[in-house]
C-alpha cells in the first residue's frame, strides 16, 4: 500500500449451524449439514486464508463463529464421524476418476474433486488435528482475522423482549463459551439474523462487547438520524457501536438474479451425482439414510435458464471468479471515492455474508474471496480491508443514536420467525424462560450435585429450543418435521427437568442421557438466568 486509502471495506463472514449432533445414532441426515459445511466451506476458507497469511498478503477480515458450530467443531464424536465421511468421499471421488476415464468432459472435474477432498483431509488432520476451532485460532493468531461470536444457540433476540433474562443469557452464555475456547472475550458480536431491538445492546455492554452489526434500515431509521448513514458506526446509549450493512455490496454477492453466483460458468448446485448415479455407488456416503442426498460431486455448470446443463469447466469458472473479484473491488473503489468526497471522514463499507455462501452454495466463493483480498492488497490504493474494531481505533468519536428494531430476514423485521407456521412456539419459549429464571433464583447454591447438573441441563435444553433455526426452517418449509421435533424434544426435556427439580425427584439415569445427547456448553453457568434484565 503506497498511499493511505480513501476508505475501508469490512468483510464479515458469519459461520453458524444449529447443534445437529446426534449421539443416539448415525442416521440423522442433518448431521450431514455439518460435514458438508466443513468440507465445502470451512476447510477451503481456512486453506485460502492461511495461504494468504503465509504469503504475507496484507488483509483484515472478521469471522463470526456461533457457539453451536464451535461446539461441534470441538466434539470428538463428530470429528470421528466426519473422518469416516471424508474417507468415504475420497473413495467415491477416486472411483469417479476411474469411472469417467472415457468421458473427457467430466474426467478433469472428477480429478479436481479427488484432489480437493484429499487436500481437505490432509489439512484437517495434519494441520488442524481434527479441530476446526484450532484453524480459527491460527487465523486469529496470524493477525489477519478478527474472531467474534454470536448468541449461545443463535436465538432470535427481538422475540425475547418479554423475557429479557433469556435474551441476556443467550448473549452472556455465548460469550462465555467463546472465552472458554479462545481464552479471551470477543470485541464484536453478531446478532443472530441481525435481529436487534433497542436494549439488546445493554447486555452486549455488560459482556464487554464493543460493536455489533445491524441491517441497513436499523441504522438508516435510527434516531437521531445518523449523519453518515451506514458508512460510519453509531454508538448506542450503552456506548456499544452499531455497524450497518451496506446493501450494494451485499446484493452483488448474494442476489440470485443480479449476483455473481448465478453466472453461467459457475458450478451448478443442484445437479449432484447423489441423485444420478446408481445406488450402490453413493450408498456409503448416505450413512443409513435410505434416500438420495447430495454428495458434493457435481459435474455441471449453471449454463443458463435451462434444464440441459453443460459440463463444468474449472478453468472458466476460476477465470470468472477473478473477473468478478475485479468487478467487486472496482465497485467498492468507486463507492468509496464518492462517499469520501461527501464525507468529512473515511467511510467504512460493511459487507457481511453467511460463511456457507462461500464454497457450499457458491462453489467458487473461496477463490473469489482469495482474488478480492489480493486485488485489494496489490492492485489499487483507494480502499483497504479492516475490521470494525480497527475502524473504532481510527475513529473513536462517533454519533450517538438508537438504532431501529430490525433484522436481515425477509421484509427486514420479525415476520420470518413470527408467522402462522411457527408462532405456536412462543408460549412455550416464554414460559420456559420464566421458569428458568425462577429456578436460577430459587437455587443459587444447589445441593446435591445432581440438582446443579439438572439445572445446568435445563439451561442447555432451553437454549437449544431457542435456536432461530427451528422457526426459520418451519417457515422455509424444508425439513419441517425435523425442526418441530427438535423444538418439541428440547421443550419436553426442559419441562421434565423443571418438574423434577421442583419436586426434588431427579432421575440420574435420564439426566445422564440428556447430558450425553446435548453435551454442548459443558461449563455453562445457569446462574446467568438469575440476573436482572430489562429491555
Amino acid at each position: 500500500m503506497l498511499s493511505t486509502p480513501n476508505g475501508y471495506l469490512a468483510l464479515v463472514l458469519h459461520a453458524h449451524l444449529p447443534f445437529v449432533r446426534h449421539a443416539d445414532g448415525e442416521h440423522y441426515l442433518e448431521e450431514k449439514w455439518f460435514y458438508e459445511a466443513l468440507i465445502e466451506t470451512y476447510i477451503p476458507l481456512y486453506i485460502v486464508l492461511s495461504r494468504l497469511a503465509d504469503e504475507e498478503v496484507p488483509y483484515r477480515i472478521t469471522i463470526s463463529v456461533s457457539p453451536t458450530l464451535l461446539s461441534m467443531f470441538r466434539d470428538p464424536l463428530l470429528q470421528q464421524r466426519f473422518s469416516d465421511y471424508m474417507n468415504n468421499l475420497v473413495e467415491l471421488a477416486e472411483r469417479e476418476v476411474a469411472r469417467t476415464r472415457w468421458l473427457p468432459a467430466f474426467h478433469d472435474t472428477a480429478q479436481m474433486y479427488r484432489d480437493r477432498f484429499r487436500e481437505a483431509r490432509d489439512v484437517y488432520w495434519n494441520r488442524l488435528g481434527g479441530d476446526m476451532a484450532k484453524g480459527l485460532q491460527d487465523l486469529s493468531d496470524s493477525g489477519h482475522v478478527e474472531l467474534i461470536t454470536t448468541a449461545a444457540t443463535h436465538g432470535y433476540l427481538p422475540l425475547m423482549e418479554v423475557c429479557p433474562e433469556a435474551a441476556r443469557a443467550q448473549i452472556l452464555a455465548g460469550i462465555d463459551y467463546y472465552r472458554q475456547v479462545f481464552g479471551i472475550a470477543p470485541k464484536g458480536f453478531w446478532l443472530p439474523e441481525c435481529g436487534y431491538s433497542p436494549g439488546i445492546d445493554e447486555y452486549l455492554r455488560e459482556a464487554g462487547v464493543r460493536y455489533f452489526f445491524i441491517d441497513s434500515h436499523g441504522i438508516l431509521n435510527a434516531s437521531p438520524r445518523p449523519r453518515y448513514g451506514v458508512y460510519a458506526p453509531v454508538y448506542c446509549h450503552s456506548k456499544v457501536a452499531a455497524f450497518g450493512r451496506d446493501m450494494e455490496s451485499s446484493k452483488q454477492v448474494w442476489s440470485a438474479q443480479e449476483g455473481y453466483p448465478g453466472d453461467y460458468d459457475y458450478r451448478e448446485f443442484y445437479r449432484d451425482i447423489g441423485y444420478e448415479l446408481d445406488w450402490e455407488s453413493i450408498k456409503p456416503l448416505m450413512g443409513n439414510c435410505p434416500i438420495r442426498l447430495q454428495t458434493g460431486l457435481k459435474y455441471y455448470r449453471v449454463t443458463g435458464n435451462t434444464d440441459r446443463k453443460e459440463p463444468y469447466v474449472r478453468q472458466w469458472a476460476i477465470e470468472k471468479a477473478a473477473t468478478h473479484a475485479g468487478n467487486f473491488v472496482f465497485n467498492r473503489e468507486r463507492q468509496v471515492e464518492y462517499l469520501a468526497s461527501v464525507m468529512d471522514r473515511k467511510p467504512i463499507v460493511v459487507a457481511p455474508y453467511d460463511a456457507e455462501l462461500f464454497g457450499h452454495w457458491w462453489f467458487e466463493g473461496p477463490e473469489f474471496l482469495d482474488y478480492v483480498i489480493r486485488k485489494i492488497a496489490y492492485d489499487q490504493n483507494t480502499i483497504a480491508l479492516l475490521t470494525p474494531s480497527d475502524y473504532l481505533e481510527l475513529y473513536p468519536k462517533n454519533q450517538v443514536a438508537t438504532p431501529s428494531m430490525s433484522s436481515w430476514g425477509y421484509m427486514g423485521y420479525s415476520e420470518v420467525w413470527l408467522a402462522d407456521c411457527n408462532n405456536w412456539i412462543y408460549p412455550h419459549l416464554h414460559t420456559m424462560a420464566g421458569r428458568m429464571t425462577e429456578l436460577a433464583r430459587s437455587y443459587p447454591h444447589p445441593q446435591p450435585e445432581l440438582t446443579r447438573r439438572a439445572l445446568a441441563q435445563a439451561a442447555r435444553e432451553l437454549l437449544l429450543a431457542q435456536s432461530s433455526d427451528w422457526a426459520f426452517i418451519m417457515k422455509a418449509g424444508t425439513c419441517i418435521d425435523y425442526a418441530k421435533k427438535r423444538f418439541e424434544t428440547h421443550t419436553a426435556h426442559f419441562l421434565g427437568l423443571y418438574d423434577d427439580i421442583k419436586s426434588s425427584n431427579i432421575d440420574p439415569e435420564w439426566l445422564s442421557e440428556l447430558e450425553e445427547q446435548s453435551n454442548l456448553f459443558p461449563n455453562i453457568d445457569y446462574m446467568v438466568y438469575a440476573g436482572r434484565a430489562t429491555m
Partner: protein
Amino acid sequence: MQDSFDKVSPIDKKGAGTPSVSQHEQQMAEDARIELSPPEVSDQPLPHRRFPEITILETENLQMNPARRHKPTVLPGFYGATRIVLQVRDPFWMHAYWEIAEDMAKNLRRQLGEELDRSQLTLRVHDVTGVTFDGHNSVRSFDKEVHPFANNWYINVEESDRSYCVDLGLVTGASQFYLISRSNTVHTPRIGPSWIVDEEWLTIREIEEGYISHGLSPSSPGISRHARAEELLHEIALGSGGVGAVGSPMGQPGEVHRAPRGFWLRADAELIIHGATEAGAKVEVCGMPMPVRPDGSFSVRLSLPFGDHPVDISATSDDGIMHRSVSWIVSRSNRGNGRS
C-alpha cells in the same frame, strides 16, 4: 352455552380480507370446536385453546429421542396461568397470544353469570406512546373482536414508531369491558428515517466526561439510500436446474427420452472390469493403478459412452519381475432408433 359459541363468528364478519385471520387460525378454531365435547363446555364457560395441539398431533408419528419412562413427549396445551403476551412483528403488525386459566374462567362465570354468554372476547389495543399506562390514559384505543376459540391474533396498526399495550377482555351485551389480562408494552419500529436530526457525538474516551454535542450540518450521504428491507440472504436459488432435473451426468445428448405425457426413460451403461492376480501384485487398468484386495482381486467401474474403447489390463508381481497383460476393445453403439 354451545349456542353462544356458534352465534359468535367474528372471523366471518370482521376478518375477511385481512391477514390477521389466517387460514391456520381458522383451522385451529375449527379443530378446537371439534375437540370440545358439550359436557366439557358446560363445565368451562370460557373457551380455552390449547396452544399447539394441532401441530403436535400432526407430528406424533415422529419418534422423539428415547427420552424415558413417564416424561411427556407431547407438549402441554396449557401452562395454567392467565396471561397475554404482545410481540412486534414489523412496523404495522403485532402478534398477541394468550391463555385463560380455568380459575379465571370460573371467576368470570361467577361475576358475569348469564351475561358471559352474550359477551364477546375482545382485544382492546391501546396506543400508550409517551404515557405510563394506568388502564385509562391511553392516547387512543380500538377494539378487535376475536374468535372465542382463538388463542392468538395478529393486530394491524396504522402508525409505526408507537407504543402499544393490549387488554384481553370481554365486552358484555351492555358494552361493558371486563379485563381478563393486560399485556406487556411494546414499541413498533419506525418506518423510514428519523425526523430528529439533532446530532450527538461521543468518543469512547469521553464516556467519563459525558456526551458532547457537535454542530455539523445534517446533510448526509447515507440517508438518501432508502431503507429497503430486502430478503437477499436466503435467496439462494443459484442456478435454475432444481433437484428434479432429469439426466445422467454421464448421459449423451438425446439419452433422455420424454413422451408428451411426461413419461420418461433414462438409460446409461457402465462397464465393470474385474479380475484377480497374486496377492501383493500391482495392477493397472487403462494406465490407472488399481487397488488390489488382500486376496488378489480387483475391480473398477467405468462409464461406457458410445464408441470403441481400448482396455489394457496389466499385472506386475510385487518383486517387479513377472508381468502379465490383456488388451481388449469394448464398444457401445446404437441398434435401431430405439425411440417411441
